């Protein structure tokens, strides 16, 4: 079923359509939250918040083409709110995604998915070492695949700024990966 039809059925209140939408995009929501928060337990809770928000405001999504950017925008806003609260009230314990297996011991959790390839884990760790600005632009452009125009509108900066930030962030990420490999940046 194409996304437009799925969204339309969700708007009519069809639970089956909503379940399909959740299953189709839960990985994107969880991945987005995890890349922002760096904590699997918190990312799991926030991913649920993303879907609750989507459920409440699905009517404001104008078309299927804009659904993913719209979802990312919602997720980004929720993540930023969560990070602000976290900075105001630091958590005593953080749960990295590697320990997510403890949260879902009876099923192959995200840690299992992440650890399928050491290369992805390496890149994941390199992303975590980036600055907030570099990590966000890597997340939005390289991982989520948003266009420069969409990112510029989301961040409220000119396209040229997004482009230069993206170039710098990619170089910084390559250097971080190289450092983790034991080389020199």
């Amino acid at each position, binding site marked *: 079923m194409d996304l437009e039809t799925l969204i339309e059925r*969700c*708007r*009519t*209140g069809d*639970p089956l359509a*909503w*379940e399909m939408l*959740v*299953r189709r995009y*839960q*990985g*994107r929501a*969880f*991945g*987005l939250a*995890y*890349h922002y928060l760096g904590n699997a337990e918190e990312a*799991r809770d926030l*991913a*649920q918040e993303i*879907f*609750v928000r989507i*459920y*409440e*405001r*699905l*009517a*404001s999504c104008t078309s299927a083409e804009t659904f993913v950017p719209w979802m990312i925008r919602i997720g980004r806003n929720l993540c930023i709110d969560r990070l602000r609260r976290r900075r105001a009230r630091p958590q005593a314990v953080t749960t990295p*995604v590697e320990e*997510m297996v403890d*949260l*879902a011991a009876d*099923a*192959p*959790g*995200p840690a299992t*998915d*992440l650890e399928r390839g050491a*290369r*992805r884990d390496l*890149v*994941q760790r390199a*992303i975590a070492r980036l600055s907030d600005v570099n990590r966000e632009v*890597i997340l939005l452009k*390289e*991982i*989520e*695949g948003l266009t420069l125009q969409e990112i510029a509108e989301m961040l409220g900066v000119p396209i040229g700024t997004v482009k230069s930030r*993206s*170039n710098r962030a*990619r*170089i910084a*990420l*390559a*250097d971080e*990966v*190289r450092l983790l*490999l034991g*080389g*020199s940046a």
Partner: protein
Amino acid sequence: MNCREFADRLDRLLGDAVTADEARRLREHAAGCPRCERLLALFEPAADTCPPPMSPPSAALPHGTREALTREILARTSGTACQRAAELLPDHADGALGALDRELLAAHLSTCRSCRARALLLARLGEILPQLAEIEPDRAFAAEVLARTSHRTAPAAGVARGSWWQRLLYRPRFALEVAFCGALLLTLVTGGAGPLVGDPSPGRIAARWSSPIEDAHRIWRQGASVAERAGALGDAARRDVFEPVAEHARGVRGWAADATRRAGNVLRTLHTHAQRAETAASKGEWATAWVVWHELRAALPRAWQQTATDETTDPTEPETPAMRLAPEQTESRRRAAPRTGFPDRMQSDR
């Protein structure tokens, strides 16, 4: 060798030279795989055992010496070109670089191992990063989301398409805007943040915030009292001032008309006698003129007396039934304002 083994080998060889045997095996795989061939091209200058593309001008200058000389010259002139290469590498990885920049960058990469490693990593990251977009949570995740949304009403399809005030209510900043407007209105009504300055005791704050309301109520009561008094004063003025004045005016007008009528009679008498005396005198009838003259002299005192007698009539005395007042009231008014005719209430009010 498959693509995964190819990528792993390249990762392990980052920054290191590739032996001839490894290069051969890599090249064998890349020959049948365009994607791996593109990755290998980034390693080719190091893996390639052939001479560099640009032959040295002098065969007597070894390759290592030539590179060292180039670095020394660059260090004394423009500095290293790695920074500029780093600016171009992302576009190079995206295939968005112009022909001239691509050629210049390729020449730099052929001699700079560090930038070559960066270029390789950027190409590899371009493949890995999109795979990180989805991280599947555990199987219970979807069930929990459905449980959290099942008790809610159906997706608010009608909210965003509803009336303007419904859309206004669902705006993200609506609560903040309402709070701001409410605070502004409260500040304007109560006269600012006065209660927060100085003594912050609850009693003072309560008194400060309640006093404007009490003031408004007191002013309202005073306004009602003034209006009531003004209404009573108007009734009294109408009853005690304007109606008596109108009555007096009507009395004066009647007396004046009567006086005019009586004075006219006197004057007509005088005129008749004077005319007869003049006629007799002009005709030489002196006796007649003499008699008339004496009659005229006798008539003048009578006319004067008659007029004086008429003046004894009080012109302020009401003559119509509506103008009649009680005798004591008329008497007191006559004593209070015998000349002007204004009623006492008006004089006392002044």
